[in-house]
């Protein structure tokens, strides 16, 4: 079983590698904040800890964990969205704006 999870890890790493190498430098800053937002997934573990009611210390730690992870998630996704809005917003204006990102992506 542990090996199956290893498989999952390896495959996900491959996907990550393949995808990231295709992101144009243009979007590297949004990419950093996007991955940061996603790493907020540790919220999942925190929630169970905070709700499992296995003694005050655990619950307190869980509470702090939930708070911290939520900051990561909310802040992360919001700011990524703000950044990306700028890139989308500008597409209508200017001729080769469509092309610009294209070549960026294939670079």
């Amino acid at each position, binding site marked *: 079983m542990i090996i199956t999870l290893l498989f999952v890890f390896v495959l996900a790493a491959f996907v990550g590698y393949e995808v990231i190498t295709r992101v144009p430098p243009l979007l590297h800053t949004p990419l950093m904040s996007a991955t940061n937002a996603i790493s907020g*997934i540790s919220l999942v573990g925190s929630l169970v800890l905070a709700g499992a009611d296995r003694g005050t210390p655990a619950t307190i730690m869980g509470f702090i964990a939930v708070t911290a992870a939520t900051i990561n998630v909310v802040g992360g996704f919001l700011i990524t969205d*703000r950044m990306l809005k700028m890139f*989308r917003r500008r597409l209508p204006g200017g001729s080769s704006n469509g*092309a610009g990102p294209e070549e960026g992506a294939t670079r």
Partner: protein
Amino acid sequence: MIALLQVEPAAAGHGIGVATDARGIAIQLTYLAAGVLFILGLRSLTRPDKAQRGMQQAALGMLLAIIGTLLHHDILRYDWIIGGLLLGTAIGYPLGMFVPMTAMPQRIAVSHMFGALAATLVGIAEYWLLRGEVPRPTMAALGFEVLFGAITITGSFMAFGKLQGFITGTPVTYRGQNAMNLALFAATVGIFVFLIFRPDTPALFYAMVGCALVIGVLMVLPIGGADMPVVVSLLNSYAGLAAAATGFAIGNTVLIVCGALDGASGLLLSMLMSKAMNRSFRNVLFGAFGAAPEGGAAVAGAADRPVRSTTAEDAAVQLAFSREVVVVPGYGMAVAQCQHAVRELATLLEKRGAEVKYAIHPVAGRMPGHMNVLLAEANVPYDRLFDLDEINDQFDHVDAVLVIGANDVVNPAARTDPSSPIAGMPILNVDAARSIIVLKRSMAAGYSGVENELFYNPKTEMLFGDAKKSIERLVQEVKAL
């Protein structure tokens, strides 16, 4: 085939971390959906126009995962959960909405710190709850979780401090530093290995966490402020690995997937950055590059040499009558937040028939794509932006280059002086242009702390002062013509 018989319990749902009933399956499905949405979100970042929607779907995925988790059998009370979610949102919202684009690296560092804090606390609590009764594989997973987590917490905080400026940006080095770091690192690893075989030694476990926290600090101390983005992105990958380890510990697949995604992308990005600075990854992390002395000395040594400084009036005239103008933005544009003014100036010049291009150096600013984000914010169309290779051979028929708060990325020393710390970094050959106007506040060096010959080039004119003010004056003058 025994395998077949073995499939039954599992297929019926006794995986690890999976409740055996329909609800358990449902939760797992939300995780699966979340994982897929995250991947699609990252893929969407290959298309600037599709990116926003993609990441919004990723956010939806996160929501799904949260809802799924809330259905979990083990969750008996919701008061603290709700409290945490509300408090977190209250703090996270302003962090997301009101932080200026220019402070992006700091913000990401802080965010890593919080994420890692969560992972680490979960790890510690898990260990504490098991009261030392930890099977080896779980112990290994927990160990990695708290190690990577703790290093990320303090490391990110240090990076934040250096970027924000309340911790010195210059590398802190002292005798025996490496020896000490290595010793500490070895000790930590030793404790970890021991714990795997004797998990029932809490004291050691907490000692390990402590060591990891210290390592985080010592790791970042000797790294220069200009290299923080590399560090931040590396810590991103650590945060990912911590999450993945959590996944292994509680047998949660979505944690593993996200962890692997972040781990890969963080590592890759930091390598790309080092490469763009033409420095080995090792050199960035252990090179103690850009120590004040060199730079300081260089600046001093050149203090008495002649520099042509100009006025907004003259510069405006010069620009107004150039046919081909190239703008070279750098970190200074971010500090001065003058991207909108720059756009305005460019439009004016274009109205007067000039062709205005922007030359974007891969490491201009403080993070990859930093300049792109700022210019995007100011609505500069993509097709005006040119990167190093595209524009470097065009400078010779450029009438005027406008260097806005850029320094290292236009420093000829990178080409000429092999002893220079930035030697070999590809730079923008602005000195090939007919005339160069440099906007900065002083003769101070850039982040690498290296003296810049360009400023003494007879073709160069310095327009001193805050870039924003300077640009605005230029705009007025050009309008006045």
